[in-house]
């Protein structure tokens, strides 16, 4: 029996399913809008199963490489999965499922019919992105993801949403254009776009540096790294709550993933000095984003600026991890924790918005008593964002802080501490208001359990990550994406 299951799991081609299922789902949702919710939920469950299957497969057999149609690189397209891809796929599936359940209750029926096809398309693009092994394929998925994300931003069809979406569209197109230009340069110089082939061929020449500069600039824009973050707060705050959660938790992480992958496999061996620039911008992002978050009077804008700050931490790790590759696992862990915590925060904000009809921070009264689960979700997510123990955020920040002090990088260490303080300030700015007892000025509306629980479960996930770091790091290290050479941290 056990061997039967084993064969079953190994013969199925999980990565291909991960891309095809959401694509098919998107089409069904598009053709039969009435069954959109059902189709969507079934697709998400199937995707969760596929990720579980892939996890099993990677644990049993190590990295996965699949030449689509049997052609193989450099002619054909290869699908590739290692620990790095797996952790991103896992994040996407988990966060995506929670948000999907949430959206069934949050979105109005006509919004819902527009939401599902695009969201499933976005899911397909994300999954394909994490499984791509060549730069051009990454470009295609990146572009698909960007367009789907822009469409979702405009979902609520208000003027504000269109403005945000338009800025987002311009930013994302510019970003992918830079990236495409870089690929053209690389293809011209080295005659391949396959990442592992490029890694062997690339040398320290003006062309490769120009390509790296373009890739970094384009992806930094898409990841909203300070000072290229201008598009993020309006886009993320004007979208409906489930979409904000998707954008902040998953979409910005995807472009960061490409940057990390390209850096690790192609440019890091060249000994690039760009790490210092990344580190500096990261520090500025943490300080600037947090201060802006603190100044906001609207909850969703506050959370959006918090994303800008948290992205800073991901970039601050570059100067540290370039000397100590095992730290990349901590960076990914931070991205995963942030995805869970930030989506929980946006979903809680959505609950407050539905409940009170507004998201003015100064008028959030007595939420703790009336929406205890939502308040708990926000607070627990806040624990991870602040980097307090026990949480995934704490584990990652502990490792980063330790590395910063060991390497004598006091600038980075102090910014991390300072960023934590600022995060506490803006999170408690919200939580402090939820205990007050002003008279209610609005007609309160009940919030269904299917909106409260996804937020709480995501937040709990961020806390649980504080206790399961060892097995998770084991998953991340499958396939040795960080070039540790078998040395486990």
């Amino acid at each position, binding site marked *: 029996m056990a061997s039967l299951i084993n064969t079953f799991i190994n013969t199925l081609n999980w990565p291909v399913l991960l891309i095809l299922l959401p694509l098919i789902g998107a089409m069904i949702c598009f053709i039969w809008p009435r069954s959109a919710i059902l189709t969507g939920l079934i697709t998400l469950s199937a995707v969760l199963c596929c990720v579980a299957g892939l996890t099993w497969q990677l644990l049993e057999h190590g990295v996965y490489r699949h030449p689509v149609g049997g052609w193989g690189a450099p002619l054909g397209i290869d699908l590739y999965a290692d620990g790095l891809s797996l952790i991103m796929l896992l994040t996407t599936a988990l966060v995506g499922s929670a948000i999907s359940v949430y959206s069934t209750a949050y979105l109005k029926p006509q919004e819902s019919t527009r939401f599902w096809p695009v969201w499933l398309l976005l899911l397909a693009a994300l999954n394909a992105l994490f499984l791509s092994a060549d730069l051009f394929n990454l470009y295609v998925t990146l572009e698909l993801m960007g367009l789907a994300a822009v469409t979702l931003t405009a979902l609520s069809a208000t003027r504000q949403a269109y403005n945000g979406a338009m800025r987002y569209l311009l930013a994302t197109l510019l970003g992918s254009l830079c990236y495409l230009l870089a690929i053209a340069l690389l293809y011209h110089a080295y005659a391949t776009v396959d990442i592992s082939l490029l890694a062997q061929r690339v040398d320290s020449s003006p062309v490769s540096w120009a390509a790296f500069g373009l890739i970094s600039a384009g992806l930094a824009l898409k990841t909203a790294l300070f000072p290229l973050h201008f598009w993020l707060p309006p886009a993320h705050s004007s979208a409906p709550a489930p979409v904000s959660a998707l954008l902040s938790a998953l979409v910005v992480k995807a472009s960061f993933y490409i940057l990390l992958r390209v850096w690790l496999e192609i440019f890091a061996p060249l000994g690039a000095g760009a790490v210092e620039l990344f580190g500096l911008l990261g520090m500025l992002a943490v300080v600037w984003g947090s201060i802006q978050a603190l100044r906001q009077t609207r909850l969703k804008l506050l959370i959006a600026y918090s994303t800008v700050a948290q992205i800073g931490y991901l970039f601050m790790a570059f100067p540290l991890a370039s000397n100590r590759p095992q730290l990349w696992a901590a960076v990914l862990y931070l991205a995963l924790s942030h995805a869970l915590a930030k989506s929980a925060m946006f979903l809680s904000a959505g609950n407050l918005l539905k409940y009170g009809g507004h998201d003015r921070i100064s008028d959030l009264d007595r939420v703790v008593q009336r929406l205890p689960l939502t308040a708990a979700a926000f607070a627990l997510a806040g624990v991870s964002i602040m980097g307090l123990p026990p949480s995934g955020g704490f584990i990652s920040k*502990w490792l980063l802080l*330790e590395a910063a*002090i060991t390497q004598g990088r006091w600038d980075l260490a102090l910014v991390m501490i300072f960023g934590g303080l600022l995060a506490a300030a803006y999170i408690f700015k919200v939580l*402090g208001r939820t205990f*007050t007892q002003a008279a209610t000025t609005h007609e309160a509306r009940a919030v269904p359990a299917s909106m409260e629980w996804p937020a709480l479960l995501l937040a709990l996930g961020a806390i649980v990550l504080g*206790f399961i*770091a*060892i097995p998770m790091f084991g998953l991340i290290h499958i396939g040795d994406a960080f070039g540790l050479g078998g040395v486990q941290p």
Partner: protein
Amino acid sequence: MTLNESIPLLVVLSSLVPGLIIFGLAEERSTLRIVLNLLGAVIKFALVIWMLWGVYNGQHYELRIALLTDLELVLRAGPLALLFVILSSVLWLVTTVYAIGYLENSPFRSRFFSFFSLCVTATVGVALSGNMITFLLFYELLTLATYPLIVHRGTEQARKAGQTYLIYTIFGGALLLLGTVWLYTLTGTLEFTPRGFVSQLDPSHYPALIMIFILLIGGLGVKAALFPLHGWLPQAMVAPAPVSALLHAVAVVKAGAFGIVRVVYEVFGVEFASSLGVTTPLAILAAFTIIFGSLRALFQDDLKRRLAFSTISQVSYITLGVAIAGPIATIGGVVHLVHQGLMKITLFFCAGNLAETLGIHKVSEMNGVGRRMPWTMAAFTIGAFGMIGAPPVAGFISKWYLGLGALDADQGWVIFVLAGSSLLNAAYFLPILHTAWFKQPPEHWHAEHDFGRHETALALLIPPIITALLALGAGLLASVAVSPLEWAKIIAAREFYQP
């Protein structure tokens, strides 16, 4: 997981689980809530007594959970941990009874008791933590769990007080985190060990160690209300009386002081710390805080504020005892951890009773209150005499050992601090007692509630009487084998004399 591993975890869970259940409980289900609260408190108490018995018989209670490959969550019941954990579990039981009486018919009780339980969970975790990282975890949890209690009343003043509290404590937590990580990069371990684990480091690291010491003490000093980090404590008085009682006697303030004890004895080792030259400045700071707190207390008319400044002063006795860096002063400092808790919780219970029964908040309104509420004021009197250091109440024992210890360590100046502080204590407590017992009571009390046959509700009256008796007992029976003093002697012996 063996039995001896699971007991420390159960001690933590026995308040965590009721707390989580109560969070989801509807407001009206007060019977179930009371049952859960008391059940948790009793179970915790029983488990702690079991551990105490086990440790007497040479059992070893320890639980390790790996967070990262070389970073573990450790719960361990050593002598110092047990001292604090017993104090917390006893006082939690008493305070729960008091809080049930105090908050009867007030809104948001589910929320209150939920965070109340969480607060005790964190305190017990602080007590049992076997390394710095575990300590840090529960220390931060304590910050988060206390915040909702401080802002419980939901007024603008409460929100402001909560904000001040957070600014101080989150900042303190950041200092503590930085110090802990730095320490870890030097030593590669964070395990609390008698006589410390840093003395083997190369002398070139000594400047870094001094900085780490400052960071850690700075982080802990916020909760321990060391001058100039004490600003949040008087403001936090807006919290309901049971919260103030718990905050001052066991939870927040004491967690800070306990942390200082841990850091000096089991991270640095007191002898190494004094050879680094960091204990004398700490002693001076503590001495200054003692005098400063007492001086400020003199001029407060608000009873709870006066008690708050008195706490600032009294908790620094613990730090002082630690920083004198001698075996006898250690006994005085460590035993004061318990004694101060018993005395101060009594005083706060009484203050709560006065406010709840007669609407008295100020010292100037206390004329003749002793005749209206004799039992409450009797308990208050015992607590106050203990604070002054009059024999045979527990406070005398602490001061006696502190003084002897200072002479033993050739730090005679401490005697003057102790004497000055006792005088000041007398100066701000004796007028209260005089007003309460010897002045003529007014015709009508400010806002009197009728509680029938007794002077106030029994749930409010019995807890302070119990804690007052405990404070008296800890002084009278100090030489009995299970007294706090004897435990403190064991702890001091372990730090100074054992190989």
